[in-house]
């Protein structure tokens, strides 16, 4: 059952159908910065009530982990005027299969700025860093131009809208490292160090960038904040799946007729997304598999998606995760072994090299999967891969090792016949061989 209600008549809110919404005057004409104005110029709001409203909305992070945003904000220690504190907006969108934040940054940049300012107000922050991956050079230029306009209008900077709230926004340009999407690694990158993840605890709220309290949220998460303040937490909580509410940007790619970024509520049936939203399978082929939320989330077989909806609970039950909701759809001709080979290559390339299980493990994953893909593998290599995954999961500073191991574990688990077919035949007769004989 779809949890998205009457999604065919859904009115978009993150990327509403407004021409030139990225321009400041158009954004203003469509209630832009009105949430911030209400917070700063009326007595209705104080920092606690803003955080409470976000808690009430049930907003969960859109960057992959799905942590409740309001709760994260409340982890910040009590304000001490002598201790600076920082906000980081994570726009290092590098998870393969994910391309939603780029569109949000391009088409609705001011909602991200407004969201950053609201979050900063709620947590008493005076500087927000917007970290955008270096590959998005054109979009960084675009964002910088729009930020300057917001500064000129007095929406960002000193004494915003005549209030005593001041907040600066700094756009930081990355330089191509998947690991920077991990929050502690992003902090090291901001500080001008090699982007090695840090051991947690201490968590960013206690000891973040430059050792000061820090909160890190995804671009799409922060863009939801103005909507929540404007329309109320209850309104937001009423959109889509109850346990994981809100509008979501679904990035659909792969073997479909109409790929792209679509805004719909959470809790959409996967089958609706493929066959109705994305126009069905390319060339009328049959669906074979799909990855629901970026390359780290476990792959689902076509027979596993009956009645599965795009929200954390339903996907967990089905054996996967929501991730970034960047969906890759694969048709019946897809070779799962070479598909996995390219994924393992990606993680090998992107491992930062800090922890041995990940640095060495990702390399061995790639080597062994490549061996199987080239037809040189043995059946026992599959068990070796599983063993290797167990040696990597949960044994490193950050979750990259887990993210590298899961696709291997679940792709082999769910498509074992294809892997076995590419391996060299076993010299020892299997049970099945004996029965058949």
């Amino acid at each position, binding site marked *: 059952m779809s949890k998205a209600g009457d999604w065919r008549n859904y009115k978009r809110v993150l*990327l509403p*159908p407004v*021409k*030139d919404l*990225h*321009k400041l005057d158009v954004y203003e004409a469509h209630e832009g910065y009105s949430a911030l104005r209400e917070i700063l110029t009326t007595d209705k709001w104080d920092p606690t009530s803003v955080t409470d409203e976000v808690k009430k909305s049930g907003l969960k992070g859109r960057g992959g982990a799905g942590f409740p945003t309001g709760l994260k904000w409340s982890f910040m220690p009590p304000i001490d005027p002598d201790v600076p504190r920082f906000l980081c907006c994570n726009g290092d*969108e*590098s*998870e*393969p*299969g*994910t*391309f939603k934040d*780029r*569109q949000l940054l*391009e*088409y609705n940049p001011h909602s991200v700025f407004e969201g950053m300012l609201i979050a900063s107000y709620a947590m008493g922050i005076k500087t927000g860093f917007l970290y955008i991956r*270096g*590959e998005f*050079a*054109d979009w960084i230029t675009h964002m910088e131009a729009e930020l300057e306009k917001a500064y000129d209008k007095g929406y960002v900077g000193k004494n915003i809208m005549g209030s005593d709230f001041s907040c600066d926004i700094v756009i*930081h*340009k*990355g*330089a*191509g*490292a*998947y690991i920077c999407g991990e929050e502690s690694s992003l902090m090291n*990158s*901001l*500080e*001008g*160090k*090699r*982007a090695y993840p840090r051991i947690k605890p201490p968590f960013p709220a206690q000891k973040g960038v*430059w050792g000061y309290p820090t909160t890190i949220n995804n671009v799409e998460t922060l863009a939801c904040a103005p909507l929540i303040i404007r329309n109320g937490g209850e309104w937001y909580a009423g959109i889509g799946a109850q346990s994981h509410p809100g509008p979501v940007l679904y990035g659909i*790619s*792969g*073997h*479909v*007729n*109409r*790929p*792209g*970024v*679509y*805004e719909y509520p959470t809790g959409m049936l996967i089958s609706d997304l493929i066959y109705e939203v994305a126009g069905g399978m*390319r*060339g009328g082929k049959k669906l074979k598999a799909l990855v629901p939320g970026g*390359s780290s989330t476990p792959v689902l077989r076509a027979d596993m998606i009956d009645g599965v909806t795009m929200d954390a609970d339903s996907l967990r039950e089905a054996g996967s995760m929501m991730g970034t909701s960047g969906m*890759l759809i*694969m048709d019946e*001709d897809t*070779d799962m072994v*070479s*598909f996995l080979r*390219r*994924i393992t290559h*990606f993680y090998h*390339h992107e491992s930062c090299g800090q922890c041995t299980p990940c640095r060495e493990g990702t390399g061995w994953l790639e080597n062994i999967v490549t061996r199987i893909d080239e037809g040189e593998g043995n059946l026992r290599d599959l068990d070796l891969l599983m063993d290797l995954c167990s040696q990597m999961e949960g044994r490193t500073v950050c979750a990259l090792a887990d993210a590298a191991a899961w696709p291997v574990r679940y792709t082999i688990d769910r498509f074992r016949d294809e892997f076995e077919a590419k391996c060299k035949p076993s010299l020892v007769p299997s049970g099945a061989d004996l029965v058949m004989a």
Partner: protein
Amino acid sequence: MADFIKHPVVGLPDRKPDPVIPADQLHFSDEEKKQIQTWISRYPTADGAVMRALWLAQEKFGFLPPEVVQLVADELNIPYANAYGVATFYTQYFKEKKGKYVLDVCTCFSCQLCGGFDMLHYLEEKLNVHKGETTEDGIFTVQEAECLGACGSAPMLQITNGTYVHNLTEEKIDALIDALREDRMPAFTSVTLPQDEDELGGNRRSDVEHTEAYQAGPVSETTR
């Protein structure tokens, strides 16, 4: 002697290589110095500006040999080792000289399944290089890239850490190479949302001339 001693798996970098950039060119202009100071003022410590400063240096000198990294470190007044560590960590900082145009073809994930490798191989054959190599005339470097975040418009490529070219076809690559040989960079292309086509008639940005829609990718011939 064992083979691995004669040929170590990991070669150690030359600690004092001969400078590539002539000493008289190795400096920032006053304007660039001012720009770097602006960046420094935005962070609690000068270290924060190192990535921006390295970007600036790379745009100026083309790549980041040790002497350029040293220049950046001196400008920011940070240890050389820190700047060198950053310069060697990130993929987009070029450690060696590249062609005038670096073509990063994405072959990761969605692009793999929608013809990314076909495009890479076509480009390799057309320019007569392998991935990672530069053409003899020094104009093009072809590279295989990890996910560039444009999965819906696969296959795609990026030109020298800048412009994206979406929905690649062989014809599009031919036209692109011809244009780049004449130093005509393709304009920024905005990729429209499918829902906008229904509600806004496609392009939602009146300030962008070039738009493209997300398209179903071609059938992959090769996936490696």
